[in-house]
């Protein structure tokens, strides 16, 4: 069933819905009377924080791709492998599903997520358009999908734990594992600090002509 027709917008009436419990209260009261979370009309400094975390994530993405994610050492010396070289090895071995999973989780999802957040930030700032349905879908996907990128870090941890055969073959994590974890965490925080209501604020500003 659908709720009754809307009666105005909360921020215009000085009402804030709590980030934690959803209760609607006057923003002047400072903290949510039910769950004691600080109240804000919009997430504080939403766009600035989202941009800053996003920029940091992009910077970390460079070492995450360029440096070795793990090192396989054995009798024949050591061999470093980056995320991309791992994908290519699997593809050449004919393990297409694994190659596709790693490529999607480690390359495709982070890049698409960063691009999606850039689009959302630009749309919220009024610099880019987009239908509200498409923006809403993009926001939901960004929220859901980011954590799956962590799969590569777990693969490194699992292999480093299992493959300890002394001089025969030993796998150790590489610096890219840390950078990659940073990319995932930063993009997750970036998506959390984005306030989707800014998209609608921008839309309202565009549809109602300035006085």
């Amino acid at each position: 069933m659908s709720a009754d027709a809307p009666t105005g917008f909360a921020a215009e009436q000085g009402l804030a819905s709590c980030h934690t419990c959803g209760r609607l209260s006057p923003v002047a009261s400072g903290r949510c009377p039910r769950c004691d979370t600080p109240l804000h009309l919009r997430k504080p400094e939403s766009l600035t924080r989202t941009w800053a975390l996003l920029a940091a994530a992009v910077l970390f993405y460079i070492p995450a791709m360029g440096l070795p994610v793990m090192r396989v050492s054995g009798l024949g010396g050591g061999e470093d492998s980056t995320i991309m070289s791992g994908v290519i090895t699997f593809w050449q071995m004919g393990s297409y599903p694994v190659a596709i999973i790693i490529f999607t989780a480690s390359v495709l999802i982070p890049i698409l997520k960063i691009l999606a957040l850039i689009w959302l930030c630009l749309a919220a700032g009024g610099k880019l358009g987009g239908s509200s349905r498409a923006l809403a879908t993009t926001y939901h996907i960004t929220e859901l999908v980011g954590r799956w990128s962590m799969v590569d870090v777990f693969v490194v941890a699992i292999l480093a734990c299992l493959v300890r055969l002394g001089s025969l073959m030993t796998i150790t994590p590489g610096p890219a594992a840390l950078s990659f974890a940073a990319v995932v965490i930063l993009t997750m925080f970036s998506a959390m600090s984005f306030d989707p209501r800014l998209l609608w604020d921008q839309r309202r500003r565009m549809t109602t002509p300035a006085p």
Partner: protein
Amino acid sequence: MKRHHHGLAWPRVDPDEKVACHFCDAIQDAPALKEGEAAYCGHCGELLYQNRPRSLSRATGYATAAIIFTILTHCFPFLSMKAAGAYTELSLVGSSIALANDGYPFLAFLSIIFTVIAPLVLTGGLLYVCGPLQYGKALPGSLALTRWIQRSEPWSMLEVFLLGFIVSLLKLGHLAELQFHIGLWSLVALVICIAGAMAGIDRRELWDRLEIAYRKNNPPATR
């Protein structure tokens, strides 16, 4: 007195409460819903809240099962590998310790948060909050704990770890003699139970019920 009538809406302190859509900020009435119903924003069409059938007992049940599977997951290894005379075992904590031993203590710390601490806060917290709430009671600290449950939800990554496990298996497949153990099956069950427990209850229902239980203990004049 029966506190939970099947098929009916959950009780609320203020039945005429309004809600603002978390997506477009439009204020609207918040009608009481029967089980299985959901309310959508009249302005942008987003899901506002829903009444899931038997939410509290479902959340409690899944959380209890999840705690049992957590214990099993930590007591038994997932996998053991025998190759070239060496024997190694894999477990959640073990894989984090491997990261720390190889010079990445911070990564190990993150891995412990994602695979041990966040899932434990989720399941233990839900059990502590929802169990007594079925009988209209809120134990001390329930409000703070519910905030922590919500905060740790995105960081609980056991299902991602499981995917990582499958990928590692495919990488190792040809290399060594592998043997599965109880830890793996309990991890699979744990992932399912956490998903079931989190999907069991709507955020708004949990907070409305918590509020009523709290009012009973502390009359509104003092709060």
